[in-house]
């Protein structure tokens, strides 16, 4: 736990409902090893394994949950970025509990209401959650074409901030 996280935790406690921005982890010079998530059938996309991040182009990853109202608000911002982002891998992944009261069909429905024209997947084995240290949602990660993390943040994001992040990728 870095000092920044520690302080953010205390801050978060003190201002429940406040507008704290929590930076998650330091950027590193290391490339991220790809992980496999379960792509689900939404908007006519086929189900199956999906590997990310891809090499050779930037990646914008959003981790969300269908229960998360901030995720719902953030998604249109990501859609706006997607519309003029050029050659970038966009992918959104939920790590929530699937198969009990929330089903894959619920995720697909949520995605058709709020998502964008890119793959949506489930972190079935929590491999991505562990690899990207996802402690809360929404969680947004931008990686450059060599799979190095250039942006790694929790919380609500604006299109402008995400564009800046992609510009640095």
């Amino acid at each position, binding site marked *: *736990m*870095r*000092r920044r*996280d*520690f302080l953010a*935790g*205390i801050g*978060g*406690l*003190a*201002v*429940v*409902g*406040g*507008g*704290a*921005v*929590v930076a998650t982890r330091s950027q590193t010079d290391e490339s991220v090893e790809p992980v496999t998530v379960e792509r689900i059938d939404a908007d006519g996309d086929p189900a199956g394994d999906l590997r990310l991040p891809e090499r050779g182009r930037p990646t914008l990853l959003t981790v969300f*949950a269908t*229960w*998360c*109202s*901030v995720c719902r608000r953030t998604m249109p911002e990501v859609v706006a970025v997607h519309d003029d982002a050029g050659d970038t891998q966009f992918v959104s992944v939920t*790590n*929530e*509990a*699937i*198969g*009990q*009261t*929330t089903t894959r069909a619920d995720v697909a429905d949520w995605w058709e209401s709020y998502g964008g024209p890119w793959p949506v997947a489930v972190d079935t084995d*929590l491999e991505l*959650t*562990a690899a990207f*240290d*996802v*402690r*809360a*949602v929404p969680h947004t990660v931008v990686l450059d074409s060599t799979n190095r993390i250039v942006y790694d943040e*929790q*919380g*609500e994001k604006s299109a402008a901030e995400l564009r800046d992040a992609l510009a640095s990728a």
Partner: protein
Amino acid sequence: MQRRSFLTSAAFLSGIAVAGCVGSGAEGGGGSEDTVLGPPDREYDVDPADLAYPAYGQPIPDFTLPSPLHDRAVSTREYVGERETLLTFVFTRCGGPCPAQTAALARTQAAAAEGGYADEVVFMPITFDPAYDTAGRIREFSEINGADPTAANWQFLRPETPERAKAVVGSESGFAVGFEEAEGGHGGHGGSPDQGEVLEPEAAGEEQSFVHTNLLLLVNRDGFVERAYSPQPPRPDIVITDLEAVREGYE
């Protein structure tokens, strides 16, 4: 001790007991005789005895509370001797970390079902807002956060009254999870980074914030705390990994 100072100290201490820190356990051993897992990595060397809430190696207190989804009373130590127990402390109007804590339990519940050990573990979210959290709201809150509220292992406990909630959840003879109503009573929920679904957020006049300590407890089948995750909701894969390690310790 005054309520406010108690809350402040509980919040501060819970901040120190951060789970999953980078620093290695500087205690040099310090493992408990009553646990499977070794001591948690902490940034600072903290004696669990100095923490207000039940921390690593300590027993959990025993309270019998209504479990409205199952229409019976359940003790916080009911499954000691049989199962691992995971507890957390929430209120359903919470726009902050409560949905995330509940979702982490739900994710673990799903893993237990997949792993064939659903009847060897029990989940006990406890509300500290019983005035608002009716059985119906508890069921809905459980469902939207991905739990199966009909499962026998999902025991969402509801103290009978706010006073009882104070005694069980908030007091130092209880779980010592500090909470109090936020200043002004109608705190916004808008920007907390890890929030989830606020139950009935548009219900005029019913919005209420509590400032509270975030705590999720993994308790072994002997009734001792293996991990006390605080102050941020734990990553679900870490909870599942820790739970399965504890289970293996009993095989």
